């Protein structure tokens, strides 16, 4: 194993491969910073340019774009409360609060370091246990997924700052939004109102941009002058992370890494809930819990670690099984096929240099990203010191371009506007949209798993309790939920920051 890894490193550090890795992670970071323009679009645009370079260099660059985007995605989430990906939504909760308190630099630095640590550990995991992890992931069938997702949605109640009834209502709305699109069994469009653009469902990007990004712009711009605390322009450009802050981030980072690594391996993408789950666990077990939602560094470290770990381990189903875990991995699969390499269970044996070279380059990419991003923090802090009113024009342009780029169509931009209206309504009524977001993200896979489970068992509900993994999840989840409900009963939630 070690010799194979060393072979991998020597391949990854060849000039061509290193250069492609560097290009990939830089591009990925840039792409991640821009809300809306995601790794999927970038990879598909750049795919033809990799044809001449050979499979390994090409894949290394494309992979770099993917996890580089995870690093970059947290930047706008922290700076302007505009998450460009599902994984950044949670980072925005505490990250943006830290930025509003003048600690944008610390938040960005913590995000970068946590991501690096998570990336290193996850790469190690993939190297050591990748193949067995892949087989383990297969034991997750529809019933297990269904339970996991139900738990995820219920647990999102713990993320919400509002009363219980409101959170439940949010879940219902989110599930309703998730129903828009093609029915899994018949393929016929539901709730599409005859619009072909809705036949495949609402995209995550327009919804997130509208509900969070544009709504925040509305909030700031509509507040009476002087009431919005502007960031102190005297905060240092190169903030120092205190030893205490660093130490406080270690445990959340490790917890986030563990959660993200496990969830990322599940084909079908547990990566979407990795950051939510990590944040929730932090809320339950972390120290200084009262700070959550007000700028707790642990609230940045844990989800960032989780989403980067998940980004690394989501390669496992592709490399170990030949099954892509999400849309980006499907694109990687296509890229590999174009280069004449078809991944399958024997990839490690048939193409060891490619396999181990890719794993080694993932670590190299993480290292490059850390070295790249830490100095960039100063630049971002300078940007964040500008009054929001000056930034908002650029933010809105980025939003529109990003939304347009999803499907090169203005429809998504219109969707952003629609959800911004909805977000404004929530703003005025004091409703926290987090449960809507989570239910929306998880709704479609939940429905598919539930239907598949019940069809498999001919409608017999006992399928959820007669399978070992499913029962374990149920018990674990049941315990967590009980704790959640008890704690809500004890301490009343504050409804607005």
């Amino acid at each position: 194993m070690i010799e194979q890894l060393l072979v991998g490193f020597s391949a990854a550090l060849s000039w061509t491969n290193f250069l492609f890795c560097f290009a990939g992670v830089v591009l990925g970071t840039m792409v991640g910073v821009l809300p809306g323009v995601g790794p999927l679009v970038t990879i598909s645009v750049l795919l033809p340019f990799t044809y001449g370079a050979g499979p390994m260099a090409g894949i290394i660059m494309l992979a770099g774009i993917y996890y580089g985007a995870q690093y970059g995605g947290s930047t706008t989430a922290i700076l302007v409360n505009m998450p460009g990906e599902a994984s950044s939504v949670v980072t925005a909760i505490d990250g943006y609060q830290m930025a509003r308190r003048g600690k944008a630099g610390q938040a960005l630095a913590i995000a970068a370091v946590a991501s690096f640590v998570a990336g290193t550990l996850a790469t190690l995991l993939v190297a050591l246990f990748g193949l067995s992890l892949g087989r383990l992931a297969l034991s997750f069938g529809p019933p297990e997924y269904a339970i996991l997702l139900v738990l995820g949605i219920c647990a999102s109640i713990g993320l919400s700052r509002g009363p219980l009834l409101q959170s439940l209502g949010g879940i219902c709305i989110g599930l309703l939004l998730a129903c828009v699109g093609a029915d899994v069994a018949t393929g016929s469009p539901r709730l599409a109102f005859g619009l072909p653009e809705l036949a495949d469902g609402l995209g995550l990007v327009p919804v997130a941009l509208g509900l969070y990004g544009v709504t925040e712009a509305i909030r700031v711009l509509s507040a009476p002058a002087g009431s919005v605390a502007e960031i102190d322009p005297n905060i240092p450009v190169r903030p120092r992370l205190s030893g205490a802050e660093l130490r406080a981030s270690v445990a959340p980072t490790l917890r986030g890494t563990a959660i993200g690594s496990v969830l990322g391996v599940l084909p079908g993408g547990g990566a979407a809930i990795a950051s939510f789950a990590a944040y929730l666990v932090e809320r339950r077990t972390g120290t200084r819990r009262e700070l959550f939602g007000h700028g707790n560094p642990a609230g940045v470290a844990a989800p960032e670690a989780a989403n980067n770990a998940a980004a690394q381990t989501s390669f496992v189903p592709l490399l170990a099984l030949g099954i892509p875990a999400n849309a980006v991995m499907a694109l990687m699969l296509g890229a590999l096929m174009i280069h004449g390499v078809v991944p399958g269970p024997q990839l490690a044996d048939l193409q060891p240099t490619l396999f181990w070279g890719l794993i080694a380059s993932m670590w190299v990419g993480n290292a490059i990203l850390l070295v790249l991003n830490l100095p960039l923090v100063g630049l971002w802090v300078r940007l964040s010191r500008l009054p929001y009113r000056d930034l908002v024009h650029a933010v809105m342009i980025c939003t529109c371009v990003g939304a347009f780029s999803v499907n090169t169509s203005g429809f998504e931009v219109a969707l952003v506007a629609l959800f911004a209206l909805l977000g404004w309504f929530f703003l005025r009524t004091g409703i926290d949209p987090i449960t809507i977001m989570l239910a929306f993200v998880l709704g479609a896979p939940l429905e598919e798993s539930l239907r598949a489970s019940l069809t498999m068992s001919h409608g017999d509900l006992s399928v959820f309790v007669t399978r070992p993994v499913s029962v374990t999840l149920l018990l674990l989840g049941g315990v967590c939920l009980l704790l959640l409900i008890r704690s809500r009963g004890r301490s009343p939630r504050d409804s607005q920051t």
Partner: protein
Amino acid sequence: MIAIHNSRRRVLGAIAAAIALPTIAKASSRPLRMVIPYPPGPPDTFGRLFADQFAAKLGTQIVVENKAGAGGGVGADLVARSQPDGETLLFAAGSLVGSNPYVFTKLMYSPEQLVPIGLASEVNFILTVRPGLGVKTVSALVDLMRREPGRIIYPNGGPGSLPHLAFADFAHGAGVKYNDVPVRGGNAVLAATLGGNGDVFVGVASETLQQYYNEGRLVPLAVFSKERLAQMPAVPTMGESGFPGLALLGYYGLFGPKGLPDSLLKRLGEAVAQVSADPGYRARLTSLYATPGSVSTPGEFASYVKADQAIWSAIVSRTGIRITE
């Protein structure tokens, strides 16, 4: 005076022509837009491979545009409505015109608005089971399904898709019932079967499947083709296994909007034929477990498409698979 005027005119004329020339040249070599109505990743891979070669043979730049949605409907609709000037073409699976019109009562594109240009590649289907089922032949599977009607799980990754229709026709012919479990996409089908949550499926022949067969984690029962596949000589055909009517395959082709002028059609068709004959392209297809097919003119392709439609419409009426809005 007149002489000077004439020479000035000639000079002016020459300058005008010089300015106009690049514009004319540009108009005839504007990049061709090839719409692939699937998201990036397989099966879009076949399209990109084809586009590469096609651009070389045609001498024009080709821009590939992924316009996914509604199982290919969004992209198909886009091309069907576009100007028939040869600048927008569709690379799609034959199912868009071959089976979808019979399966789906409501399509968001009009198949009659698409005109066939050329055949790009053909793919084969393999009836595959998980080893835990304990069957190694088609007849053994049929026996098992007869003994336990409705217990065998068929993870259905695409209702109304060609693999689904192929399997339904097989079950219909054998007179057996199965449990159709809807899952999202071909990858979910593979994951479900490998994990023991699915029993049998119809997969598109690929290197990935071959590796699973080699490892014994999946068992190929039969191929849905007229002859045994060169890469899997030990796997019998459905015909050899007692189902001679199930010689089916899927194909990818190039289509254009209706109204394409004949000269353009001929030129494009010739380019496609050249691509199919290219040894490099053929080698890549072989490595992807696909074949180039043997069609060389748009006319031949149109008959090919018609024959294909006849096959699938018959299957749809036999099995009664119809998906309504």
